[in-house]
């Protein structure tokens, strides 16, 4: 991977489009960061999510650390109600699988799309007791 941008302009457009579409479909704010992180990656992701300020509550922050091979998803209080941890976990696994195959763009695009689909469904407020 040479110095400079990790994505071609076409790849950036694809990711940007996925992020914008996800926002339009769900009303949640999606953020994706791809790059190196010093120190504890989960702690950094939480701080970076908190730095979103007023948007943090509705924010879904995706951090991809290509050298440590880690993907972190942080959802805000309201966002987590729409996008539960199970759906986020599923998206993170799908992304990790794509990344392991060397496909950063496809992984991010699919992951964001999966989360948007999960969040677009109406939340289950009351689950029926087993009869």
């Amino acid at each position, binding site marked *: *991977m*040479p*110095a*400079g*941008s*990790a*994505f*071609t302009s076409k*790849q*950036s457009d694809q*990711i*940007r489009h996925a*992020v914008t579409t996800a926002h339009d479909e769900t009303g949640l*704010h*999606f*953020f*994706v*960061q*791809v*790059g190196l992180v010093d120190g504890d990656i989960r702690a*950094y992701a*939480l*701080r*970076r*999510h*908190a*730095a*979103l*300020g007023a948007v*943090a509550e509705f*924010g879904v922050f995706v951090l991809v650390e*290509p*050298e*440590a*091979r*880690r*993907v*972190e*998803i*942080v*959802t*805000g*209080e*309201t*966002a*987590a109600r729409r*996008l539960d*941890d199970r759906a*986020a*976990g599923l*998206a*993170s*696994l799908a*992304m*990790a699988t794509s*990344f*392991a195959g*060397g496909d*950063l763009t496809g992984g*991010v695009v699919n992951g964001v799309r999966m989360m948007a689909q999960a969040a677009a469904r109406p939340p289950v407020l009351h689950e029926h007791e087993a009869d």
Partner: protein
Amino acid sequence: MGTAVLAAGPALAIGERGTPGDKLSAIETTAIFVGIPVAVAAVIAFLVFLPSIVNGPRYRPGRPWTATTAWFGEPIGSEATASAITTLPPATVNGGGASARW
């Protein structure tokens, strides 16, 4: 008609008609026996590398990462604000998330 084919037959045999032409010059020989194979190899090599030229550099897990950090979504908050945060707001603490490695 049968006689016409019989008469034409021997005339069409190789080497029966026409002048054999001059000997190939050294330049022509090189062009045919070196130039054409090299050109073919170059075309094949170009076709092999074409996908990576079009798609840009490929991410390879395990290799050092030298690219700049990429950010997608509205640019809200910054590295500086993030590093200044010591206590997380409830919006983040009461949220959720997931992580995976590869």
